[in-house]
């Protein structure tokens, strides 16, 4: 049970009879009166234990969106329930309103809608519902907490999908170009069409021209059905927060954009999230199914505070495919010490595959190099320059063992990875 502000106000009102009557007994009488009235009020309150609850909420949602969660309360008791209800969602679910008033006549059912706007990815849970049922005078209330589980899967936001249309347009430009533009190892013969002015004369197919008695040129399209293996590092370095986004979130954004683009281009994408064990993987999915499975796998994964085990990666890639493929490693290449494992492992991968290492750079570091206000700032700038030098050395070392490196700020990294993929595709290096 509990009391309300009205109870306190009623008690304060006792000053009037005490002052007017000026009798020591007035205090005792007034307090007794208030307690009796509150006890009667409490006795007349509907029992919150007699409520039957059920909850309806969408099973999954995207981060940054809002979904309604509807709570149905059925009053199985004999008295009306005038209550304040708190639906017990976890704080990061962003449930509003957190407390809602509701009146349920005996034997009837009411619905309460709570809007969920989560600000963190993963599975957001509700554990219970607390009902505070007031008496008709609203002086005292009966309170009970009823167990009622609920969960909503909050998927990664995929903000970088805004870059997708422009990249798809570029992909289409690769299609149907004449050989002079893109002819290379990786392009394959697509079709024949009539010659128009401006086409490269070298791509005229003379045999077809002779058959058709019109000038015909060959067109080319980029290679298809290549394999892309995306490996996301979920180790300790991925927990670092850059520009209010953890590295792993940026990696997920990049992976989603790359997968969306590659699956439209006809390539097969596999995703593995790994630190010392496989935290999640998507294999053999294509089309729309691929993205939905990817976000479902990514949703509950948070970085763990353990060192990434790079030595397990080559066998992991082998287990996915034996054919030559593009392996994208989404990690961080900041300091030589932390990335030694990566460097020793890379040659094994580059022997067989095209390897792309993507890493987030901190815009704060670049800003720090230019800030030379005072003594502290100068030392900080020196330290930032040193960090940049380390990173560029690491990138150079990775390039030396035959892999490619993409580094960019959190907002720029997903499109940068997509562009590198397009460039590799155009060059036929997949």
């Amino acid at each position, binding site marked *: 049970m509990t009391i309300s*502000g009205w109870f*306190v106000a009623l008690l304060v009102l006792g000053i009037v009879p005490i002052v007017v009557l000026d009798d020591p007994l007035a205090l005792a009488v007034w307090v007794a009166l208030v307690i009796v009235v509150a006890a009667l009020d409490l006795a007349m309150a509907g029992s919150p234990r007699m409520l039957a609850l059920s909850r309806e909420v969408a099973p999954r949602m995207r981060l940054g969106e809002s979904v309604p969660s509807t709570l149905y309360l059925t009053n199985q008791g004999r008295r009306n329930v005038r209550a304040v209800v708190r639906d017990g969602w976890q704080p990061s679910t962003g449930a509003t309103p957190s407390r809602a008033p509701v009146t349920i006549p005996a034997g009837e059912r009411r619905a309460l809608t709570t809007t969920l706007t989560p600000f963190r990815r993963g599975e957001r849970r509700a554990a219970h519902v607390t009902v505070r049922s007031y008496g008709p005078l609203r002086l005292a209330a009966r309170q009970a907490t009823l167990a009622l589980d609920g969960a909503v899967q909050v998927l990664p936001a995929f903000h970088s999908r805004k870059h997708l249309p422009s990249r798809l347009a570029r992909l289409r430009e690769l299609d149907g170009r004449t050989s002079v533009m893109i002819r290379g190892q990786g392009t394959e013969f697509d079709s024949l069409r009539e010659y128009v002015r401006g086409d490269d004369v070298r791509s005229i197919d003379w045999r077809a021209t002779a058959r058709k008695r019109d000038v015909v040129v060959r067109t080319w399209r980029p290679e298809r059905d290549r394999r892309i293996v995306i490996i996301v590092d979920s180790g*300790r370095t991925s927990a*670092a927060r850059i520009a209010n986004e953890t590295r792993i979130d940026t990696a997920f954004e990049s992976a989603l954009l790359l997968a969306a683009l590659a699956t439209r281009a006809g390539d097969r994408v596999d995703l593995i999230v790994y630190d010392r064990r496989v935290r999640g993987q998507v294999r053999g999915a294509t089309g729309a199914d691929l993205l939905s499975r990817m976000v479902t796998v990514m949703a509950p994964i948070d970085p763990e505070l353990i060192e990434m085990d790079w030595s397990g990666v080559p066998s992991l890639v082998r287990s996915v495919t034996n054919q030559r493929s593009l392996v994208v490693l989404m990690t961080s290449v900041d300091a030589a010490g932390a990335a030694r494992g990566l460097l020793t492992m890379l040659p094994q991968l580059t022997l067989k595959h095209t390897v792309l290492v993507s890493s987030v750079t901190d815009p*704060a570091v670049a800003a720090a190099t230019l800030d030379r206000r005072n003594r502290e700032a100068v030392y900080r700038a020196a330290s930032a320059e040193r960090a940049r030098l380390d990173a560029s050395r690491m990138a150079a070392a990775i390039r030396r063992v035959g892999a490619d490196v993409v580094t960019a700020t959190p907002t720029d990294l997903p499109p940068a990875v997509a562009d590198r993929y397009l460039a590799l595709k155009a060059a036929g290096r997949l």
Partner: protein
Amino acid sequence: MTVLTPTVRTWVRTSLFWIFAIAVALLIAVAVMVTRGAAGSGGAPLSPTNAGPVGSMAVAEVLRDQGVTVVVAATITDALKALARSDEATLLLHDSGQFLARNQLTEVTAAATHTVLVEPGFTQLRALAPVVKSAGQVSGVLQADCNVPAVVNAGTVTGGGSGYRVDDGTEGFAACLGSGDERVSLVQFAQDGRTMSVVGTVDALSNEHIAANGNAAFALTLLGATDTLVWYQPTTADLHAENAPTVGELTPDWVSSVIALLLLVFVAAAVWRGRRMGPLIIENLPVTVPASETLEGRARLYQQASARLRALDALRIGSLERIARMSGLASTATVDEVVLAAAALTGRDAGMVKDLLVDAIPVSDRDLIRLSDQLLEFERAAAHATRPA
């Protein structure tokens, strides 16, 4: 539905042990209060009815055994009555609360043949012994150093209490039990045919110390000189003599009731605001690792070690790289090539440019800041020179 909140009955059942434990603890507390008295372990200091360490029941009882009539006076009226009953009476006046006014003090001392002022305060000294002044605290054991009978009998006296000083050039004063710096613990003098003793050694009269040194002899000689001893410790009851209305009489009756009600309101408001709307909901939070931790750490290390050259070199390497890129040099270009290109680009003296980009050694933090500013400015000039017009 599974209800997580326990019903009143189950709550009582689960917390029965604690309810019982608290009840027992309260009972014990009440029992102790009743047996030991509400005053607590200490009791009133120097009270002839207090058997505790700070009381003086021992002295009073021994005096009674010796045939001295010990009268304990609670108010000034009692004290005056008791003094009036006998011709020769000693008055022990211990007014630690400074309750008596000047006229009351003179009135009560005038009735006694011998007044023992125990640890008198400022008001009492002003009224009764204007030439005696307070002189701070005394401790340790004091030796007999005058011919006052009490002191001679005692030999040594526990000195714990207050010390006094007699103004220079006053006659007829016996100042005893000195503790150096003209500070004494017993001053005795005659006034209008009555004897007045100012005693600072409070500890010597207490039950705790009465058996030590010559304290017992000192106390008995001092207080047992006459047939009657009036032991008077003024209380707040003596303040009524002024007929001034107290705060309680001035305020209306309902004030205390209102205060009690407001206390109840306070408790009720605390319950109202303090009752939680259901239990907390547990959520595992992800770790938050600021990315620039190593950057900040290294900066602090540079600063603590005053690694000026190392810091400046880091800045120079960055500048050299950017200038090399601006001037279109290969990434394999040597430092000298970059310096020459930069000098040519900005039109500055090659020696000075080399000094800035390679040679100068900063000897102070001020130097470091100056060189870093110059680097930044030089880089900007180079960028300006390479930018197409």
